[in-house]
Each structure stands twice: as structure tokens, then as C-alpha cells.
């Protein structure tokens, strides 16, 4: 079966190719995916407009908001909150256990598992969870990896054992872990102020990646490592690491780094909340000034105008040429916090609602 990310890529490529044939003569901008955005807010059932996280689970869409966990299915929202067993109402992160179908929710008050409608919650008081503020969660095999405000942890679902990772047993200097991305070979942690940590699942060893120039506001050594030690998010896919910071983003292939900054890429802002790789060469960047897509050479940015609020789509080609694409819709807010893929569509968590980007054929 084709993996969702691959499927997304192929569908996007197919639509883009169709558009290329139709528009090649009139549009010099590289073909980039176009979407019609449908936005969900409290006005149509979303529990809160502050959406911190989004997860696609087949036909179900999970939205982690400031006031509960919403699941959108068959045109209706179902809301889970503390009274249903959710650890806390503010849901910061979501992960799907693809083997079991269980959904894991990281909240401001613990970690919850939603399984067949039952919610089991783990807190720092009733379990081995290191801290109740759960910024990130990732499921790999029988292990649930958790990023918290006091280190990272791993819950082995078969044994129930919690393993904690912090300044005492890893190279982590700061223990404010913002994100985690787990794969069978390696697990990466985005650590606020302590760079990127790599855990080798085979050897049990740790590696640490930091800003090589150690400067907080400037980049002296471009493409030599992380742009900054405050890492906000990490996505590990096809053995490629995509890492975001509040000062620019990076791609790391295990040997070479490539940095992305607003001054020399299509990033709309260096302040990036979240990054999600589609594969080794394609990724989405969720910034405070819009949603950006990178196809390995070209960029597209989707946002409501920062001045007028009108929908905007901007394409930047590999040579730095900018093209404004007329569009009628945009994500609900330019402050983007998360993204997930549903076939060729995207679902976007923003500070002003949840947005469904429906892939369009090129005009």
C-alpha cells in the first residue's frame, strides 16, 4: 500500500503536471500545488479556534485545540474533554499508532490515549511520565516517545515501563523538549535551547546537533549545522531530518546540512512553529507568517495577507523569482501551528481555526 506521504506527493505531482500542460505558456512560475481552503471555527463546531495540532486518521480528522480534542467525521464534530478522561483541555500534540489505530494526545496536563472511544490518561503523578506538559508525541512500534517540559520519555506499551531521558543520561543541557519524531532506526528530539538530539535505536547511543556558531541571532556558518539551539520541531522521514527553529530551518541528510532562511529561501518567516517532511525532498513549514511548501527547489506560501487579510499565494522559484498567484481562499490564520496530509489534501492547524486545503487542478 502506498504510504500517505508518498500518496500525497504523487497526487500533488499529478495535479501540478496537469496544470503545467495547461498553463505553461502563460504562467512562468513553477507549478506548485493550489488549494481551496475550507476553514472550520467555533462557528461550525470546532471546540476552540486556537488549534495547536492536527492529525489525519483516514476519514477522521483530529484537532487538538485550546479547549478540547475535536474529531471531525462524516461532517460532524465530536469533542473530547476532561470530563471524558482527557488529561487536560489544551491539546498540544497528536500522534497515530498506525498499527492499532489508537490516537495519542499530548496536553498541558498529561498524555492521553484514545482507543476505541476509551481515554486513558497518564500524568506525572499516576505514571512514569516525566512532566505533565507534553509538547510532542510520536509512536514507533511498541514504544510511545514523548517530549515534555522536563525531558523526554519512552513508554513501552508491552511492558508498561517508562524510560526517562534528561540531563542526567543524555547530552541534553536544557530539558525543555518541544518535539519528537521516531523511526525504527533513530529518534530525534527538538530541544528548546539544547539543539537536536538523536537517539540510535540500535546502539542506544546519543548524538547532539547544535548551532555551530553558537550565536543566537546571526548565522556565521551557513549549512554547517542547525541555525539555532532553540529547536521548535523535528520531522524524520526517509532518513532525512527536517528541523525548525525560531530563527530559520534546516534539512540534514546525515552528512550535509542545508539551512533555510527568509533572506535566501521562500520561507515567509524564520519563526517556525512546526515542520513536517513529506519525504526526503519535500516539506511543509508552519510559520508565524503563513504556511510554506518546499518541493526541493521551489517554494509556495499560503496565507491571509498580513495587512489586508485577503487570501494570498506566493511562488518563489529556485532563482528567487516571485510570482503572486491569485487565489480566493487561504488558511484561517497566518499563525500556523501544525499540518497533516490526507491524500492530496492538507489539514492545517492555525491560531484562528482549522483549515482544510483541498487540492485543486491548475487553472
Amino acid at each position, binding site marked *: 500500500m502506498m504510504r500517505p506521504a508518498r500518496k500525497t506527493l504523487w497526487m500533488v505531482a499529478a495535479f501540478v503536471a496537469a496544470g503545467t500542460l495547461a498553463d505553461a505558456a502563460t504562467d512562468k512560475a513553477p507549478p506548485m500545488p493550489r488549494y481551496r481552503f475550507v476553514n472550520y471555527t467555533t462557528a461550525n463546531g470546532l471546540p476552540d479556534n486556537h488549534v495547536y495540532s492536527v492529525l489525519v486518521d483516514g476519514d477522521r480528522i483530529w484537532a487538538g485545540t485550546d479547549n478540547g480534542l475535536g474529531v471531525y467525521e462524516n461532517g460532524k464534530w465530536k469533542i473530547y474533554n476532561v470530563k471524558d478522561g482527557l488529561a487536560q483541555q489544551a491539546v498540544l500534540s497528536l500522534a497515530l499508532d498506525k498499527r492499532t*489505530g489508537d490516537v495519542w494526545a499530548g496536553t498541558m496536563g498529561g498524555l492521553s490515549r484514545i482507543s476505541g472511544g476509551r481515554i486513558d490518561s497518564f500524568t506525572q503523578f499516576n505514571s512514569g511520565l516525566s512532566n505533565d506538559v507534553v509538547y510532542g508525541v510520536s509512536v514507533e512500534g511498541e514504544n510511545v516517545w514523548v517530549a515534555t517540559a522536563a525531558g523526554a520519555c519512552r513508554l513501552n506499551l*508491552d511492558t508498561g515501563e517508562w524510560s526517562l531521558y534528561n540531563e542526567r*543520561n543524555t547530552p541534553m543541557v536544557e530539558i525543555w523538549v518541544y518535539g519528537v519524531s521516531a523511526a525504527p532506526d533513530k529518534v530525534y528530539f527538538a530541544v528548546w535551547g539544547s539543539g537536536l538530539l538523536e537517539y540510535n535505536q540500535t546502539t542506544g547511543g546519543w548524538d547532539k546537533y547544535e548551532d555551530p556558531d553558537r550565536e543566537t541571532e546571526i548565522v556565521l556558518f551557513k549549512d554547517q549545522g542547525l541555525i539555532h539551539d532553540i529547536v521548535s520541531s523535528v520531522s524524520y522521514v526517509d532518513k532525512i531530518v527536517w528541523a525548525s527553529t525560531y530563527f530559520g530551518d534546516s534539512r540534514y541528510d546525515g552528512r550535509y546540512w542545508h539551512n533555510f532562511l527568509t533572506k535566501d529561501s521562500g520561507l515567509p518567516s524564520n519563526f517556525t512553529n512546526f515542520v513536517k517532511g513529506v519525504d526526503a525532498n519535500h516539506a511543509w513549514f508552519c510559520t508565524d507568517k503563513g504556511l510554506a511548501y518546499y518541493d526541493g527547489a521551489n517554494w509556495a506560501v499560503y496565507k491571509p495577507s498580513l495587512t489586508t487579510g485577503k487570501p494570498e499565494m506566493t511562488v518563489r522559484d529556485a532563482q528567487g523569482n516571485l510570482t503572486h498567484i491569485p487565489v480566493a481562499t487561504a488558511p484561517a490564520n497566518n499563525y500556523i501551528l501544525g499540518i497533516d496530509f490526507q491524500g492530496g489534501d492538507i489539514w492545517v492547524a492555525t491560531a484562528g481555526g482549522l483549515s482544510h486545503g483541498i487540492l485543486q487542478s491548475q487553472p
Partner: protein
Amino acid sequence: MRGMPGNRRGRAGLATAFCALAAAVFGVAMWNPGTVKAAAGGRTGEHLIYASPVELLFSPDGARLYVLCNQSDEVRVLDGSTYSVIKNISVGHEPRGFSLSPDGARLFVANSWDDTLSVIDTRTLEVVATWPVGAEPSSVVEDRRAERLYVANRISNDVAVLDAQTGAEEKRLAAGRGASYMTASPDGRRLYVTHIYPNPSPHRTPPESEVTVIDAASAEVVDRIPLRSIAGVFHIAFSADGRLGVVAELHPKNLVPLTAVEHGWVMEDTLTLFGDDVGDKTVEIPLDDLESHAARPFGVAMTPDGSRMYVTSGGSEIVTVIDVPRLLRYVRLNRRGIAYDLSASGNYVVKRIAVGHDPRGVALSPDGRRLLVANRLDDTISVIDTRSDCVVSTIALAGPKVISALRHGEQTFYTARYSFHGGIGCANCHLDSTFDGLQWDLEPDGLGRDIVDNRLLEEVKDTAPYKWNGGNPDLPTECGPRTEKYFWRSENYDDLTLADLVLYIRSLPARPNRWRLPDGQLTPAQERGKAIFERSVDNFGRPIPLANRCAFCHSGPLGTSRKSFDVGTKKETDDSGLLDTPQLTNIALTAPYLHDGSAATLEEIWTLYNPHDQHGRTNDLTKDELNDLIEYLRTR
């Protein structure tokens, strides 16, 4: 009051007379289905191995009867008509559940104590594979496509999904606590899983259980049917058309004082109905009637024509016969509150059939004409004619012909005959000789006073004194006068029976600990935890007073000094903070914790209930160290 149980016996006597006539008509030997009798005559002190049948299966063509023998670790294969022995097949330790593949070619056996699955080729009747599975596998089902095996694991509270050809584990699905019994829907699309311990719920709230529903195609949990106020769920059965599902279960009333033994029951025996025949919501119905219980319902079956439902009750040693059309008419008219109407069963129960000691699993012959019942503590199988609903013969399985003192003690443990209206027995709260995960308000300390968590019985023999307040100096006191006065309220044990009961309880071993490594070594985390358990100096270099060290109170191989201490956990409802030190045997299994069950997990003992370090010096520990300590405790 003492005369009440006689009503049950009297009715059983009439039924016996009727059935004896029926048996004579059928020309078969009639076994006398009496109630428990002290086995003074044949009593022996030897440790004998009995068959202890717990589950039964007919082959699809009815030619063979498979009998799962829990104590002799066997599957016995009998001729499906004559019941003559074809072969005895040795399997793993303490087999608890088994099932046939849909094509009947393979028989899968869940061996609960050695965590394996035995695969038997039904043509050769040989074990062809033994596969490792999760912790305490208790039942197993293969999907219709012969692609996956599903195994319910009691200790790991999950359902393992295995490759049906290789046994390789694909994943585990979160089930209810103490996942145990599993049944496929008639169309094979769904699997329904029960669990014997209640799921975690807030302290002193009604217990909550579920039926976990698994989609066989995706191997994912797709629903959880809530069972409110239920703790202890056993077999499930379906009507042939799949429109009616039924669950055998216990409905404890542990939030009220145990005085209610005489005031309206402390433990109901109920069924929950679900499916299209009863609508969108489940319906809970009582099995008991006003004057007697059907204690500890376990096995359940429905005839192919959907007319009859049969439920075994281990404590009452009966099979209850329910007229299904009448039942459905009744529940459609009276949906609410049926479970609390103890006269309700008169509307649908048509017969109580006396069988042997601790009847468990049942099997209907393919034509639906015979219902076979496994009498675990008799080594017999009752054969019931479903037209007359009478026991027409009893199959005696090979094994010891005398009843050992131990066996008699076990029969006493599992029967409900001694309690008022036959309502409860030891095994009602100590399910399968363990515990129930509940907290009870026992009368001697006053109503609403001294709420106590039920404790595990494994390795209990050398842990005197007993009770949380250490008030009972020995097991004869614990099990004799105290139990008779406050629990049974109907009948006392004779000296011999009490001695045998105590002998049985003293014999209960600890289940294998699943957190220890196979070679007995400790993991690094467990080693670190052990050092914390045994430490004498805290993280600041200060000596820890002797009485504040874990290993002082929880000393010795069982983890108890057998002395009482005040560890600062006294609640407003407690008369004293002085509490007996509980043993640590298999402590990982027995949540919730503390004397009143207020700590939902081991962690909460120290994160919530030890603010002043009275329950050991722990507030200097980092979270990592507390996790290590808990990892070590799980190995005890």
C-alpha cells in the same frame, strides 16, 4: 434465614426427580447432582492432580469433544457421541482457553502460566507448534481468513495479534483490565473481548468494565461497549443470527456497607444483552431471584434456534435456563432498572439445573440437542438434554477418585452455598483465587468506616496477621468466624471444612512474575530501583531512619515484616492509621494501592500520598529514581 438455601435445594430436588425420570427414559446413567458435601469419607492429605475441566468444544461435525483440563495441563479428546477417550494431549501450564480454527483443522490452546500458545493438528492430535505470547494468555481466536490469531492476555491487559501461520506477534491492542475471554460474532467480522478486573475509575465510584470490540479485518479496536457498575466479566455468546449478544458478569455493590448481605444483596449476578434484538443500548438483567442467587455466572450459550439461553453459575453449581423470546419481550417493555429488580428473572428464567462443583465452560452439540457443562472441581461433564433441560448423563473424566483435603478446600472456596441466599463465596471477590480490584466497606469497623482494598491471596500463607488492621492472627480466624459472621450470615463451616479451606488458601502459589528477566537477573533500571529500596542514606547524604527505609517494613522474601505501621495514609473515615504491612507478591498486578485503594497506581503512593515521608523516605527522589523504584517493585 438458614432455611432459605433449602429452597434452592428443594427446587433442585424436584428438578432432579423429573430429570431422573427423563434419564430413565433415555436409558442413561444418572449422576446425582448434589450440592457441596464435606468429603470426610474420601478425604486424603495427598496432593493429587485432577483434570479440572474448564472449557469444552465440539468439532464442527460433532464427532469429537475437546476438553480443556486446567490442572492436568491437557486437552482430552473424547468421542463426541460415546464420550470414550480418544487421546490426552499435553499442553502448557494452566491452560485457560482454547478454540478451533474456522476449518477445524487446528486447535489453539492458551497456556496461562507459561505464556505460550499450543497449536494442535486435529488430524494427528499432536502439538505441532508452541508459540510465545503475552502475559497470562487466557483465550485465543483465529479469524475467518486464517490470517491472524487474537490472544487475550490477562496480565498485560491487551489482545495480541499474531500471524496465524507463524505465531509472530504483529501488535497488541489495548483491552480491558484482566483481558480474558473472547468470542467472534457469528459472521466473524467482530471479536468481543471481556476482562475480569474493573478498568481504573476514580476512588469510591462504581466500577467500570467494557466489552472490547475488535474489527477482524483491520485488527483494530473499533468500539468499547460500556458495562457500568460491573466488575468481573466472563464469557460472551451470540444468537446464531448475530442479533443478540449476551455477557456473563458480576455486579458488585461495593460502595455500600456489607450489611446489605441481608438487605438486598452485595453482589448481583447479571447478564448484559446487546445487539439489534435489544436496540442501540445495552440492557442489564439479573440472573438471581428473590430468594437465591445464581452466583458467579461464567459460561453462556444459546441454542441454534434462538429459543434458549444457558448460563453456568460456578458458585451456585447450577445452569440457568432462559427462555429467549420471553426475555426479549420483557426487556423491550421494561428497559430501565431491570438489573435492580430482583423479581425480574421470574419473567424469563424457566429452570435452574443442578450440576457439579464450579461449573465453567459450556458447549452445545452442533445440532443443539445437547449442552455439555464442564464441572471444574468434580472432574465431570454434565450432559443436558436441551429438549427436557435435564441432566441426562454425567461423564467422569479419568483422574483421582478420592477428594483430597486440598480439593475439598478448593470446592469450599468456590462454592456460594454457605452465604445468605447463596449469594457469594470466597471466589466472588477473589476471582480465580486472586483479587477483584475493588474496595469494600466491611461492617465490623462501623458503617462507612475503614474502607479496605481487597488483597491478593498468592503466597498468603506466611504473611499473618491478616486484615489491613492486622486483627486476625491466623487464617482459620480470618476464614472462619470472621467470614461466617460478616460475609456468609447463613451457615458456618464444620471444623474439617474450615481446615481444608485454610489448607487450600495456604497452598496458593504466586503466579510467575512477568517483570523479571527469564534468567532471574534484573534490568539496569530494576537494579537501580533495588538499590533505592535497600538504601540507608538519602540523596542529600543524610541517614534514613530505620523505620523510613522501604526494606525495613517490606522485609524478607515476601516483602512484609508482618508488623503494623502508621505510614501517614489515615483518612477521615479510618479509625486508626496503624496498618498491617502488605506483602509485595506480584504487587504490579494489584492496583489500586494503599489500604483503601486510594492510590490508583504505584506511582501515586509516593507522588500523592506520602507528603511527609512517612511511607518511606521518597521525597528526595527524582522522577527517574521513582520510576526505577517502581520497576524494581514490579519484580517482587
